[in-house]
Every structure is written in C-alpha cells, then in structure tokens.
C-alpha cells in the first residue's frame, strides 16, 4: 500500500518540473511580447523588419542590417559545417578503425563543450589575421578581417563538433543488421552508407543539423568578437556585419537612456526566439513525414 502511495506522489512531483519547463517558453515569449509592445505601437512591423535605417537617436529602428547580418553569418557557418560534420561522422561511424574512433570521438565531444568565449579569442588571434592577410588578398580584396567570413568560420568551428557528435550517435544507432544486409548483397561501404545507413538515420541527421543551426543562429559571444559589428547590410563575405545577438549583448543596459531602445532590443530578442521556434517546428514536421516514409 505504501509503495503505491509513493509511486503516486512521485508521479505528481515529477510532473511539476516537466510542466514548468514547457511553461517557461510561454512565459518568456509572453514577457518579450509585452516588452516589445512599445516599439510595435510606435513603428509598423514591416518598417521594423525591412527598413535598413538604424538611427536610435532619431527614433528610427530598422532591423534589416541585423537580420541580414544574422542570416549571412549563419548561412556561411552552416554551409561550411554541414558537409564537414556529416563527412566526419560518416568516417568515424563507418570507416574508422576502432582505435582511431576511440581517440578522435572523445576529442570531438570535448570540443563541443568548450565555452564560446574561447572560440571567440581563437577567432581574434588566428582567424581574423588569417582572413585579413591570406584569404582576402587571394581574392584581391582588402578587409579588416572582422567580417562575415570570420564570423562564419568561428561559428562553423563551434558547430562542427556539435553536429558531428550527434550525427555520429545517430549513424551508429542504425542497426548493424541493416548494414550487414547491404554488405552481404555486395554493396560496398559507401553504397551502404548512401542507400541504407543514411536513409535510416535521416531523421536524426535532420535533428542534428537543426540543433547546429539553433546554436549558430543564437551564438553571441564568439561572433561578436570577430564580426565587426557595423550596422550596415553586408554586401560580401569580407564586409563587417552586426548579427542580432551581438546587437542585444552590446547594447542592453548601455543605451537605455534612448527612448524606445529597450523595447527595440526586446523585439530583437523576440525575433530570435520566434525564428528558432519556427525552424524547430518545420524540422519536426519534416521528421514526422520522413519517419512515416521509412519505418
């Protein structure tokens, strides 16, 4: 009798944190909505999103430069990191010898856990000069090195271990039976990866990429240190950019004397939140579709 009561109590108690966690998202969205109301009442949504005039003193808050900065940097990071991560995950899970796997895999996991400020410093010390003195001159372009490309590189370096690590788990989780079935039919390892392993692991790969995207999209510190932070729409990889998270981090608490600034930053935060949520929802829809197709 007592055991049943304990079981019931545990059931009720564990419900609370689980419920609180999901409630938190709603509360956060709510707070951000309320706090950004002021700016939304003052300026129309299209102006906020599509105007590139950023003159807080004049009360003009056009977010386009920041949105463009975020999109550029995230795009560069994902374009670099998706192929690199997937290939390294394929190598580690399908080709690597046991000993190589045992050495490389923990290192990658470790890399995934390093604080972002370390990557930022690494970016300033190594990548900024690299882009300034080596990569840009190769294209006959002069740049300070603090630009979209450097931001994208730093982000890619941060995101690669994350995607690799999850993709590796996902690929390893594909039942050995299936690989054996394919190999026993005379398929080689690459054909087996291409037609069987990847197909089976696809939903998990999508999840890995979405996680990588969310991390890249919202990453603040490391990008802020190398991307230049100029509120102008970048027109090339070697132009500086000013992504939304950097805008918030640099200015929140500092520029509060300017009217509406506080509300504008809240709106920027809301924007980040909404995009990540939408992206996750889309990814989930894809996952459900894909799973229905192959299970």
């Amino acid at each position, binding site marked *: 009798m007592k055991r049943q009561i304990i079981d019931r109590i545990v059931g009720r108690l564990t419900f609370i944190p689980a419920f609180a966690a999901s409630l938190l998202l709603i509360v956060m969205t709510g707070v951000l909505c309320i706090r950004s109301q002021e700016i939304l009442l003052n300026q129309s949504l299209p102006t906020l999103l599509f105007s590139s005039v950023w003159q807080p003193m004049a009360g003009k808050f056009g977010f386009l430069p920041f949105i463009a900065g975020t999109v550029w940097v995230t795009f560069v990071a994902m374009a670099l990191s998706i192929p690199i991560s997937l290939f390294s995950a394929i190598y580690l899970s399908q080709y690597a*010898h*046991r000993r190589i796997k045992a050495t490389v895999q923990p290192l990658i996991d470790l890399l995934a856990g390093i604080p972002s400020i370390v990557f930022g410093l690494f970016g300033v010390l190594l990548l900024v000069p690299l882009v300034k003195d080596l990569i840009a001159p190769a294209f006959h372009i002069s740049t300070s090195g603090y630009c979209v490309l450097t931001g994208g590189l730093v982000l890619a370096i941060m995101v690669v271990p994350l995607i690799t690590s999850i993709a590796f788990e996902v690929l390893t989780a594909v*039942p050995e*039976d*299936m690989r*054996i*079935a*394919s*190999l*026993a*039919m*005379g*398929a*080689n390892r690459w*054909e087996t990866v291409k*037609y*069987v392993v990847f*197909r*089976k692991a696809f939903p998990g790969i999508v999840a890995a990429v979405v996680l990588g995207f969310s991390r890249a999209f919202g990453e603040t510190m490391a990008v802020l240190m190398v991307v230049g932070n100029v509120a102008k729409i970048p027109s090339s990889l070697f132009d500086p950019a000013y992504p939304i998270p950097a805008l918030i981090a640099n200015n929140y608490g500092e520029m509060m004397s300017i009217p509406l600034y506080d509300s504008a930053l809240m709106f920027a935060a809301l924007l980040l939140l909404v995009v990540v949520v939408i992206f996750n929802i889309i990814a989930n829809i894809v996952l459900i579709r894909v799973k229905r*197709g*192959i*299970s």
Partner: protein
Amino acid sequence: MAGKPITISHLNVRIGDRNILKDISVSIPPNKITAIIGPSGCGKSTMLKCMNRMIDLVEEIDIEGDVHIDGENIYGSGIDVSLLRKKVGMIAQTPNPLPMSIYDNIAYGPRIHGQRKRTDLDEIVERCLNTVGLWSEVKERLEDPAAKLSIGQQQRLCLARALAVQPEVLLCDEVTSSLDPVSAKHIETELSSLKNDYTIVFVTHILRQAKRLADYVIFLYLGELVEYGPANEVFFHPKDPRTAAYIEGVFG
C-alpha cells in the same frame, strides 16, 4: 542455373588468441543442402561467414587457409568482394529488411550490380517473390515499407532479396530460429526446392531440421571439424564418439 562446389582447405580463424576454427578442410558439393551442426559457440556461423568474407567485418581477425568457390580462391589477391557476395548470397538469423519498400528491397542487389531498367527490375521482383511464395501476399503493396511485413514474411523477403542477384551459393545462418513454426516450415520447403539451382549451406542447432533438410552434414565441435559425410551416415552411423554423443543429446 547451377550451384557451385565449395572447397575449404586448412582454414584457421583466430580472434586475438582465441582459436575459433582449427584447420578445417572439407568439400561441399554443388546442388545439395549441407548442414553445419554443433553446439553453440563451436564456430558454425564463423565458418559460414568465411564463405562470403563477411568475416572481414570482424576487427582484429586472423584468417589462414583457402576457400575455393567454383575453383577460385576467395582469399586470393585481386578478388572483388562485391562480386563474390553477388555470387554467394547470405540470409541472416533474424530477418533484416532494408529501410525501404518491399520492391526496393528486392531491387537493391540488382541495382547495386548495375541493373537499372525498370522493366527488368519489375520482372526480377515478381520472379523472386514468386519463388519464395510471397508474390500473391504482397503484390498489391509493393511500395509499402518492408518493415510492415510479419517476421515470417520478412524472412522470406530476405530470401527473395538474396535470390535477386542470381547467386550460385546460398548461406543460411539459423534462418528459422526467430520464426514461428508455420513460417519456419515455409522457409524449409523453399530451401529444399531451391537446391536444384543452388549450393546451399545452412547452419542450424535444431537436429530435427538438419535431418529433414540436409543431404550432407558437417559436425563442428569447439572449432574442430569432427565429422563430415552424407546426412544418413552422420546421423545414423556416426564414426566419432563426440558426434554420437551430440546426436543423442548428451551436450547441446
């Protein structure tokens, strides 16, 4: 179509310092069913995997000796393992359909080996599913995921998939052990009708099954080939006391 003979000579397999197979030499005749029997852990599956080199997947394995299939040493240099496995099909202990449709499962092998024409593939799929008696059961839902079939149907699908690349040898690793009795019966019937066209080697730990199906029997014990001969002789007049003991059920 005709099966091909398999000749194994002085086959030794070691993993680390464990001797899995010890100096195995045997000739497996074409177009017959040869059963490999013996207690668990005696090396039955390992021996089977040596015949299509799936044993290569085991890391730190050490193989000595020769396996000739149709006169060709499959451990010789310049052997294309992909082609070898096309010639030597394998059916696993638990059904392992690929994560794709019923049709694509059968078409997988032919496609890998270069068959692309839809009409040819259609014909292969129908013929192979017919051979294993699955066609009438699945012809309306060839595009359904193979995983939706019952376990018994999945195993027949795997047999059909192996047949799709027109192998010469079929290796079967306790293929009925995860099936219900009716499905197991199905597979047995299909195997005995297939021996006209293929050399069949199957591993089993069920003696009655070996008695029902096998023309020849290999008895392995602790990695050693203890006895080999026509099924009747091995079962009814075993020469080695260990074979006799196993057949009488002294150890199992």
